[in-house]
């Protein structure tokens, strides 16, 4: 069974360099690149117009950008190591300097994730530390888990905020329970660097992928590997779950974007509009049918796709 997704628009050359990260809210998509500005495009208008440019956000460029569930807060991490918190008020994003007060930036934080309510920020650092900060108390650090020191490349928080997962350069994958502060079990990990981890919306599964080109699904209650999704011919750089948890989206270094059915554990759609790296893939909120997603990467553009229904 295959599904069809058609290109339904794009923000061509939205940035002047590789677009490394996408983050979505219920009506916008935010993007970060090797240039200093962040861009905000509307996703409720069919033409995806640019609605805000945040100039000078990160002097040397920005590699990670995340939003919380309702789109009131965003966090970005720049190549210079700085972490910035952004608030959405009156249709406008602006920096919230009180939320974190620069604490996360001085310790080489690399990848970040925001809790659904936007209160907690989780980050993994270049020396493998996993930390959690409370943004409602000025960025007070409430957790610091030490791992074996391998570069933390990616991080995700489960929707209920109870679990935290990180992927590392040495192939390790960790899951922490944020309530008990413990690792419920150790995961077998991957052989090669992990580049993306993502919890399913219900938190039952964790997907992880990277240089081994295979996407591995873990059962988060046992830590067991329950499936291997193979088909990518290059390093997998980004993963995103659809809002129902039925589909998983992946993007790879050779420009391929794939949609996987979790039910059948098969690839149901492949897109290859570019041969250059796809750094980020993101499902768009399912406000109206049909479902759609966005991709970005070395072609400097953001591309949008919608499912073809009723065929």
């Amino acid at each position, binding site marked *: 069974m295959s599904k069809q997704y058609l290109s339904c628009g794009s923000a061509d050359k939205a940035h*002047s*360099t*590789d677009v*490394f990260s996408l983050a979505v809210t219920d009506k916008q998509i935010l993007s970060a690149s*090797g*240039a*200093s500005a962040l861009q905000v495009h509307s996703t409720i208008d069919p033409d995806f117009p640019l609605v805000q440019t945040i100039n000078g956000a990160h*002097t*040397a*460029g920005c*590699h990670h950008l995340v939003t919380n569930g309702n789109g009131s807060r965003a966090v970005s991490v720049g*190549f*210079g*190591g700085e972490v910035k918190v952004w608030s959405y008020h009156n249709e406008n994003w602006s920096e919230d300097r009180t939320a974190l007060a620069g604490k996360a930036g001085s310790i080489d934080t690399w990848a970040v994730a925001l809790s659904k309510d936007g209160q907690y920020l989780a980050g993994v650092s*270049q020396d493998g530390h996993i930390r959690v900060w409370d943004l409602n108390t000025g960025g007070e650090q409430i957790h610091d888990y030490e791992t074996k020191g391998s*570069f933390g*490349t990616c991080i995700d928080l489960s929707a209920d905020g109870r679990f935290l997962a990180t992927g590392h*350069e040495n192939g390790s994958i960790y899951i922490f329970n944020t309530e008990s502060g413990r690792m419920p079990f150790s995961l077998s990990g991957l052989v*090669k*660097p992990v580049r993306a981890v993502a919890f399913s919306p219900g938190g039952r599964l964790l997907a992880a992928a990277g240089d081994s080109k295979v996407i591995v699904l873990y059962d988060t209650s046992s830590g067991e590997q329950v499936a291997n999704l193979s088909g990518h011919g*290059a*390093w997998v750089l980004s993963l995103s779950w659809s809002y129902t948890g039925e589909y998983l989206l992946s993007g790879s*270094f*050779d420009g391929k974007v794939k949609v996987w059915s979790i039910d059948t554990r098969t690839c149901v759609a492949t897109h290859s509009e570019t041969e250059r*790296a796809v*750094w980020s893939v993101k499902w768009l909120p399912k406000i109206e049918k049909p479902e759609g997603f966005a991709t970005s990467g*070395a072609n400097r553009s953001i591309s949008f796709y919608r499912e073809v229904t009723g065929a």
Partner: protein
Amino acid sequence: MQRYSEAEGSPTLPHTPGIIQKYIEETLATVLEELSTSDGRPSISLRRRSKKPTLLINPMNGALEGNGPESRLIYSWPGKSAYEAWKFTVIFRVLAAIAENLHIGLVVSRRDIYYSDPNLFGTQKVVDDIVDDVAYTVGLDRSALNVEAAAKGLVVGSYQLKTSSGHVIDTQTSAIDTLVPSLQDIDEITISDSNWVLVVEKEAVYRRLVRLGYYTKALAGKGILITGKGYPDLSTRAFLRKLNESGSRSNKNLPFYALVDSDPDGMAIMSTYKYGSMAHTSENGRLNIPCLQWLGVRTSEVVAGALHNDNEDEASMSLTARDRKKIVAMLCNSPVWAVEGPEPEWRAELLLMLMLNLKAEIEILYDRKDGLERWIDQKMAGHS
């Protein structure tokens, strides 16, 4: 030691060799005169280029240049501390060494000066900094002071040198690699049957190519191989620039290529050849090679498998903490790597290294099925 800043602008002394001699002799004479009085307090004043100049790429010559306030340093004796007295003494000694060599027409190396009294100078850098400041103060090249760092670059290939004494040296007949010759001894370089110039970052790779005779066997024909053994010294850059000028004078479209590691140092070394060094911006306009083309190697190609390496897993390495810091500093501080700068591809490559935390060395090309030489052949063909 006092220090104060002056308005923008560099010294504008006329460019005659005599002026250095005059400057040094006058300075030394004043000092001696002061010393001979009963409570003399001799002092030497030097200008120093701004430590934090605003860097820019000069659109006229493609060189990395800086402008910013320079500072003037006044060193007096005995000064307020033992450090000041020592500093005054070492400057005096360096000036005396330069004066002596100018007088007898000898070229002296910075190492020679340092080794004339290592206990006094302490480190080579002390001598280097003073030579730089003296050169800047009189507004001339360091070479005009007859002070050169010992040449460390190597070169091999087809070219003819006409020396200042009228000798003609034809490297075709010798065809062995030599130290890069000092430009003070060269009147003219003629490039007769060379079709390309390849600048190699590392000596080991250079030696391998020399051993393989690549400068005579390349698909693109005969050529010239040159290495600065890492960050190039002035002599290597000056010689390369002379080759470049000879190439364009003879209306021969002589391409210049760079083969460097895919890591921050490799990229910075390539930038030093093409745009100039961050430390000596005042000399870049006379030394840069704007036409230098990037042959490789690229981390992006290694990752994409485009190099078809047999042992893919060993092809790339993780960046060190120092590598990452260096890349960030390059992205933030130099206009060469700026977002709207002249080298978007270079910048993209640095960002890719940071994103993937990877780098790659030239040596990975050794393991390719067709070897390093065929890879260079293909790359040169792709650029021409």
